[in-house]
């Protein structure tokens, strides 16, 4: 196979290979994506240094990054059919605490006609991890990319030492102006070191992921494992909420995990006579679409207490309740755990019917609300949304 036959284009020192008849070929490479619309406002520095295909990074010491084009390790195609070219090589050292680091790939393009971005990835040791984000030409100026979650959202088994294809629906990037995309951002949010390669970035008009079908097939949506990102599996924000003097601190830590690896959610609360506190995970896009829970019948999560005997309410909010900043409570956790919260992991299953007359077509959040004065610590893991079977959907209609 000659370079000419593959239609390779030299861009930024790398050969972006366009093939036909391979998994690589069903999209277009970056050089074929339309450029930014005319008169897109750009800072002088963006005009001078921003170049499509450019890679780089950012770090606060002692965190560090490395980014260069590697012509020794590259993806040779599903059948080894691709000619020699270069791949992106990223390396990071994320120090504990505040010091951050990340890398980027400048796109400088109008992606509004595309639905999916794909690329191939391979780690040096496996287990490398990062959050994926996007900057449009506005957010780039305030250095505020929109992140859609961890790489584990798109590769559930994580990065390995084998080449794997990452498929990301562009609709996940809710917020950026897709007609004025500046960059893809890789944020190293977990402490440690890693090295990996990215190759064959391509853009597709087709939506290559059928998430509804995947959820339907497995019978549930794993909303959060708390392992790799503060965002849940829908890419939505999660956090503690509080009104003084009540407080709650949420953290994702190994000590809170269920199982041998990963992290769990640790909630440390101190509920006073006044104020309120708890934790939420959003189901809706902020200023965007709400989530349709009508195909689901229950939520499930694992819980244990640091001392046992901890208590909380389980709430959900639809669009209306989210607007007023409150939620409907299904009841106390003890209602679903006859022995209450103990120091041993237990599964809580809450039928959505227990939340009463919410608008399940427009759901906003799931809430853990600490209602009873006192302090304590609870651990949560593996939040699931359990789907109705087709039979259950039809039965509910007839009833």
């Amino acid at each position, binding site marked *: 196979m000659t370079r000419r036959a593959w239609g390779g284009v030299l861009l930024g020192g790398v050969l972006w290979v366009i093939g036909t008849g391979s998994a690589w070929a069903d999209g277009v490479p970056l050089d074929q994506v339309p450029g930014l619309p005319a008169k897109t406002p750009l800072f002088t520095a963006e005009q001078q240094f921003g170049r499509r295909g450019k890679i780089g990074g950012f770090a606060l010491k002692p965190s560090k990054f490395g980014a260069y084009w590697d012509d020794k390790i590259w993806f040779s195609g599903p059948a080894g059919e691709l000619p020699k070219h270069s791949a992106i090589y990223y390396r990071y050292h994320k120090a504990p605490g505040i010091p951050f680091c990340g890398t980027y790939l400048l796109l400088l393009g109008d992606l*509004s*006609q595309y*639905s999916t971005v794909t690329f191939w990835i391979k780690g040096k040791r496996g287990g490398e991890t990062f959050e994926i984000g996007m900057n449009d030409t506005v957010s780039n100026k305030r250095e505020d990319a929109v992140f859609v979650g961890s790489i584990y959202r798109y590769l559930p088994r994580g990065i390995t030492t084998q080449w794997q294809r990452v498929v990301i*629906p*562009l*609709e996940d990037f809710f917020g950026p102006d*897709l*007609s004025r995309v500046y960059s893809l951002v890789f944020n190293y949010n977990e402490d440690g070191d890693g090295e990996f390669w990215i190759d064959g970035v391509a853009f597709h008009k*087709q*939506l290559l992921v*059928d*998430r*509804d*079908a*995947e*959820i*339907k097939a497995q019978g549930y949506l794993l909303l959060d494992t708390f392992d790799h990102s503060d965002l849940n599996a829908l890419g939505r924000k999660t956090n503690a909420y509080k009104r003084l003097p009540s407080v709650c601190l949420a953290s994702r830590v190994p000590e809170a995990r269920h199982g041998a690896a990963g992290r769990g959610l640790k909630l440390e609360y101190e509920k006073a006579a006044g104020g309120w506190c708890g934790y939420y995970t959003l189901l809706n896009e902020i200023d965007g*679409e709400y989530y*349709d829970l009508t195909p689901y019948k229950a939520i499930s999560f694992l819980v244990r207490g640091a001392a046992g005997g901890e208590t909380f309410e389980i709430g959900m909010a639809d669009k209306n309740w989210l607007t007023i900043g409150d939620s409907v409570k299904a009841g106390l956790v003890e209602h679903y755990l006859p022995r209450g919260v103990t120091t041993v992991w237990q599964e809580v299953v809450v039928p959505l019917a227990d939340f009463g007359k919410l608008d399940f*077509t427009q759901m906003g959040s799931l809430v853990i609300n600490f209602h009873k004065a006192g302090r304590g610590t609870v651990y949560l893991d593996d939040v699931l949304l359990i789907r109705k079977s*087709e039979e259950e*959907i*039809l039965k509910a*209609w007839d009833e």
Partner: protein
Amino acid sequence: MGRIISTLRWGMALAVLMAPSVALATPLVIDDFEGGSNKLNGHSNTYVQEPSRALQVRTKELAHGGAASLMLKYDKKSKGGPYDGGGWCGYYTQVKSGRQYFDATGYTKLTFWVKGAQGDESFMVGVADRHWDEVGDSVKSEPIGKYLPAGKVTTEWQQATVPLASFFVDVKELATIAICFEGACFPTGEGKGTIYLDDLTLE
């Protein structure tokens, strides 16, 4: 008044005759209901206002082509809800992708296959362009019988052919196609039933 309307009709007919010819596009299957979402990356769902209700299931119970079709159950009420109008119900599928409206220039009709569980079920087709999308509504066709060979929904598969021109929308910026169980579809203003749809296509 009748003369004015008649003149308008002739004027519209002339306008159609004199319109520049547009190259016809190859048929585009919007949804064959085999997967969890449509083929244009758009969301699909029911829309309901109580007390009316609707349910959509991509089912393998029946199919015209492939292995699956869309089952729509509807229960349109005539009383209750806003303005005591019985609320509303139906199904929509987005042909826009994010902020990108769909340019249907070159397509002249919307086709799909339909059959009823009992026969005599009825609905209208709705189409929304950017304007109608922004107000959350759509332009409705006439009851579906007009577009079916048998003149009504039966228990056999029939192909419905609905001219896009009948919607008077901006086909360069289509947003949504809908199946609307409107009160006007039913003699008493209310109706309940099950229909199956397959291979929603722009031709």
